[in-house]
């Protein structure tokens, strides 16, 4: 589904990602773990088109994507969330979601002037879909609230909701569980598993080892920008190299 090949990215001499390679299987949940500063988010930025790699290639669904701009990658169905939620503060939750709807004729201004009923029809559909997503994530109550007024946990859910609006084939989740309470964490875990059952592929960065152990089919460990190890979560947890790099020696 997704293939990262020898990807390297430097920031003024610091090698944030260093000849990193791995594959993600279709309809799997893959965990991407590693200590702070390992280069995980940088890799997400490369996969989603926000950064260009200095070297190496990224392939998604049979297509090379490392030279594509972010909006093109999103439209291919490779959709990301942000580590720190980035909600559109001055817009309502509902419109945060309706924004994402694809193929809206209303995104061309002249269609609003000359074909208002078509535009309206598509917008109705976008709204219905947004309401469905809010329903699924149990956020319907907040539909008309300004996104800036949501709590931290709700903003995390909004990230997920916005991604869902884009019909992702594959979801890149950057720390979906960071800073959320245990009960919300269980809910988020449930959503991820449910979506995977429906065929969505996941690559998720996470520091919470319980979450990783619970839902991931496979774990990839990064350290200092490179792929250090990968495999079954339990096996990786026991791997002495990983224990040394990631957990600082305490299993």
């Amino acid at each position: 589904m997704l293939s990262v090949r020898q990807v390297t990215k430097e920031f003024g001499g610091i090698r944030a990602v260093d000849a990193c390679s791995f594959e993600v299987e279709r309809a799997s949940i893959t965990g991407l773990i590693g200590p702070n500063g390992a280069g995980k988010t940088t890799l997400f930025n490369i996969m989603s088109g926000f950064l260009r790699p200095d070297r190496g290639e990224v392939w998604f669904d049979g297509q090379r994507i490392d030279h594509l701009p972010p909006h093109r990658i999103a439209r291919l169905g490779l959709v990301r969330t942000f580590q720190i939620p980035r909600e559109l503060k001055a817009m309502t939750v509902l419109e945060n979601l309706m924004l994402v709807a694809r193929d809206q004729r209303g995104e061309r201004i002249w269609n609003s002037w000359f074909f208002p009923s078509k535009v309206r029809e598509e917008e109705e559909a976008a709204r219905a879909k947004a309401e469905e997503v809010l329903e699924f994530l149990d956020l319907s109550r907040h539909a008309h609230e300004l996104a800036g007024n949501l709590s931290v946990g709700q903003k995390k859910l909004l990230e997920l909701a916005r991604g869902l609006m884009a019909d992702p084939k594959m979801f890149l989740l950057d720390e979906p569980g960071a800073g959320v309470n245990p009960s919300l964490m269980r809910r988020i875990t449930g959503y991820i598993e449910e979506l995977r059952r429906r065929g969505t592929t996941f690559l998720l960065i996470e520091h919470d080892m319980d979450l990783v152990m619970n839902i991931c089919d496979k774990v990839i460990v990064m350290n200092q920008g490179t792929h250090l190890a990968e495999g079954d979560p339990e096996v990786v947890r026991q791997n002495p190299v990983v224990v040394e790099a990631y957990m600082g020696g305490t299993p």
Partner: protein
Amino acid sequence: MTVEGVLSYLVFFATMAGIYAVLSLGLNIQWGYNGLFNIGIAGFFAVGAYTSAILTTPPSPTHLGGFGLPMMVGFLAAGAASGLIALLIGIPTLRLREDYLAIATIGIAETIRYIFQNEAWLAGGIRGLAGIPFPWRRALGPSANFVYLALVIAILAALYFALERGLRSPWGRVLKAIREDEYVAAASGKDVFRFRLESLVLGGIVMGFAGSLYAHFVGFISPQAFHPMLTTFIVWVMLTVGGSGNNKGAIVGAYLVWAIWSMTEFVTDFLPSAMATRAASLRVVLIGVLLIAVLMYRPTGLFGEERHVSRLIARSPTGGSHARSG
């Protein structure tokens, strides 16, 4: 002052304010909805005015053309020329950091003024360009200004409705999303550059229309009329006072600020003659104080932004719940 005097002043006032309201609508598309920092409004305004003037004046040895075309042609061409300038500014700058657009717009505005000032063959240079027609002026006699006011109001209203419809739509929603966070817009599959360019160009077209309305109203234009700081600054104050992101606010703000601006003229008339030379600066200071007061006590402006972009949601009877409309 006679009744006719007052009346004719009011007509003059309402026309000028209406023309500024068109500028303010243009800025609202760029800044209010899309966060584009255009500080070269005077340049777009001037390009519109000069384009319309050159195309509609009778042939003349003192400047380019004099093509004697109908005012309607001048009006549309003014929008096109100003929109083209916006396009040329936008293509190289809108992919870069935000400050590049600001620098480019003010730079182009100044350049445009110098060109009109120094290239006398083009538009009369510093002496300006006179005899810009309003076709029915002679036939209408004293009521010509009334008719012109009606024309300005009609165009303002048409622009208002067209922009409300165009902005309160998925297009406007993307603009607003880009203003809020361009990364989110991009990650949501929206081509940020394309939407920014469209917003800059549409705003430019609207500002060009305003320039044309101005030229045909006063009949004479010269580079001094497009002082970058003054025009640009006052339009910014208008939009901010009225409510950035709200088309109604853009219009009301224009009328309000133009009223205050005009009143400061009367006040400075009473100043002792020793201070009269500084009157112009004093007026700008007064408007600056108004701006600061609004920013402090009502940062969203008089109207502020509406909660929903979409008319679909705004129209739903509940507004606050998630009942479906339609």
